[in-house]
């Protein structure tokens, strides 16, 4: 047992304020999204899918990091653990948000819109009968969510037991083993889920790096979010007693790693398809490199990769709270741009249409939906975060972490 008790790290009152603001924003923007859905259902569903992929990324990225830090250890994991537990607990909100997508799939996915014969003709009988059909889209979605929920419940119960002092360091190996298995399940389920939910927006096209790219995007989103929140929380008690400059440095390095990994995977996909120059593959990029979409793609190269990469090389910058937060916010925004560029062009497929068909109403919905979903998401997140101690005081490595770094 450590010399600390959970009450030493009770959440600050500012969390309540953030929770209430989130609720107000979430409810009012949800009303706007509802009006949008009434006006133009297909547009609502398209922007809803975009918002869903972003907030699902934060939920599952948190679940993945929660499992990863049990396996790898490290102080960064102890600092982020309660945040990721609270975020992964939003799995059921994401399930609710997925329901409109499952119900409205005919308005989102071309393969769901086609008749069976058309789909077989366009995609091949095997693809349609075994994978891309209405029933299996729903069954698979339920399997993913069930798996994520099981992992979340196991990790939450473990964490509650640990907080109550009912575990021993020797039993810690159990949660590590389950996490190891969980990471494998996460990788497998995201690979399939990303095929179902985003890649199949253009069912004739495929990319084998897609699932990996989705995973890296999710974890990068989570690191950026965690950095912003930890730096904010560290301004006051009790997190300021734990979160030190060298921890910020560690998080900065992790964000840097994932910025590079994102660029590596995105570029791999591009160079393979560009080199092959096959009609079936290159169309996906041609659609995104014309009619105004090319500006988003170019912005991704420079603002999602080159700019944060160059700045995060600096050691001093990574140890400067406000600057790291500014970069994290920028990358969070670029995560949205990336998801927009990957999904939205599929909905404006005309040969000369592109952004010409993207009207004010379209732009408004692509802003309103992420904020509506995000407000509710953050409300539940802060509500859950405010229930418990912010630090895992009974973790086997916690006392060691709290020992003054020499001097």
């Amino acid at each position, binding site marked *: 047992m450590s010399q600390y008790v959970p009450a030493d790290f009770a959440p600050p009152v500012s969390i309540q304020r953030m929770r209430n603001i989130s609720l107000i924003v979430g409810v009012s923007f949800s009303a706007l999204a509802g009006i949008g859905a009434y006006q133009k259902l297909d547009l609502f569903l398209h922007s809803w899918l975009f918002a869903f992929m972003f907030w699902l990324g934060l939920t599952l990225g948190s679940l993945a990091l929660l499992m990863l830090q049990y396996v790898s250890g490290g102080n960064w994991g102890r600092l982020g653990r309660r945040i990721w537990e609270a975020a992964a607990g939003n799995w059921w909100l994401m399930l609710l948000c997925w329901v409109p997508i499952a119900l409205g799939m005919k308005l989102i996915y071309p393969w769901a819109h086609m008749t069976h014969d058309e789909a077989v003709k366009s995609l091949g009988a095997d693809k349609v009968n075994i994978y891309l059909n209405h029933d299996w889209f729903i069954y698979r979605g339920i399997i993913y969510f069930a798996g994520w929920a099981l992992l979340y419940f196991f990790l939450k119960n473990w964490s509650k037991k640990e907080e109550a002092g009912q575990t021993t360091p020797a039993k810690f190996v159990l949660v590590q083993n389950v996490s190891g298995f969980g990471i494998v399940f996460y990788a497998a389920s995201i690979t399939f889920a990303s095929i179902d939910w985003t890649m199949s927006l253009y069912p004739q096209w495929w990319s084998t790096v897609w699932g990996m790219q989705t995973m890296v995007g999710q974890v990068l989103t989570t690191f950026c979010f965690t950095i912003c929140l930890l730096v904010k929380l560290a301004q006051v008690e009790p997190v300021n007693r734990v979160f030190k400059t060298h921890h910020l440095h560690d998080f900065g390095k992790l964000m840097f790693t994932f910025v590079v990994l994102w660029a590596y995977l995105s*570029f791999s996909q591009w*160079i393979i398809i560009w*080199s092959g*120059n096959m009609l079936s593959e290159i169309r996906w990029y041609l659609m995104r490199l014309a009619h105004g979409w090319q500006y988003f793609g170019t912005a991704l190269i420079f603002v999602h990769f080159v700019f944060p990469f160059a700045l995060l090389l600096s050691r001093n910058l990574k140890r400067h709270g406000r600057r790291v937060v500014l970069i994290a916010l920028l990358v969070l925004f670029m995560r949205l741009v990336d998801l927009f560029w990957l999904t939205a062009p599929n909905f404006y497929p005309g040969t000369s249409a592109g952004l010409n068909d993207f009207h004010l109403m379209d732009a408004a919905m692509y802003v309103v939906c992420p904020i509506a979903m995000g407000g509710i998401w953050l409300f539940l997140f802060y509500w859950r975060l405010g229930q418990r101690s912010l630090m895992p005081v009974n973790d086997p490595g916690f006392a060691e972490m709290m020992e*003054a*770094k*020499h*001097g």
Partner: protein
Amino acid sequence: MSTTPIYGLMAEFDGPTELVHAAKAAYDAGYRKMDTYTPYPVEEAAEAIGVHHNRVALITLIGAMLGMIGGYMLQFWVSAVDYPVNVGGKPFHSWPAFIPVTFECAVLGASIASVLGMLIMNGLPQPYHPVFNLPRFAGASRDKFFLCIEAQDPKFRLSETRKFLEGFHPDDISEVPN
């Protein structure tokens, strides 16, 4: 009192916390020419005596830039100038294809520059160093932590510096013969 010029005064500590405490105080007191010796890397000790701000980072960046430019120019010159070959109907100067090699050359340039820069800046290899004249110094590779304030420091006065170091209750203070 010894009349031979000495290298410095060496204080021996039991743990890293005491060492960092003393090193910080020495830096605050105005000592600059000093060094810490520990059995394993103690980053805070390096920070305490202000050695983190060196030029190795800049040398690494320059190496990376040179590698990047060199790698790209090599490919450009080979594929577009000296020996143009039509590959899949693509332009001779196909920049996307050059990126992976450009990146690898930047990494190569950065690693070579940082290793060479590190060796040049820290003065290795160094066959002779006065601190090894002290028999107790063998503890630095086992379980002891040392702070050596060098005699070349403008603030160094043998008796005053000794008194200053005694204030931190080290296990031992020795003069390091040059």
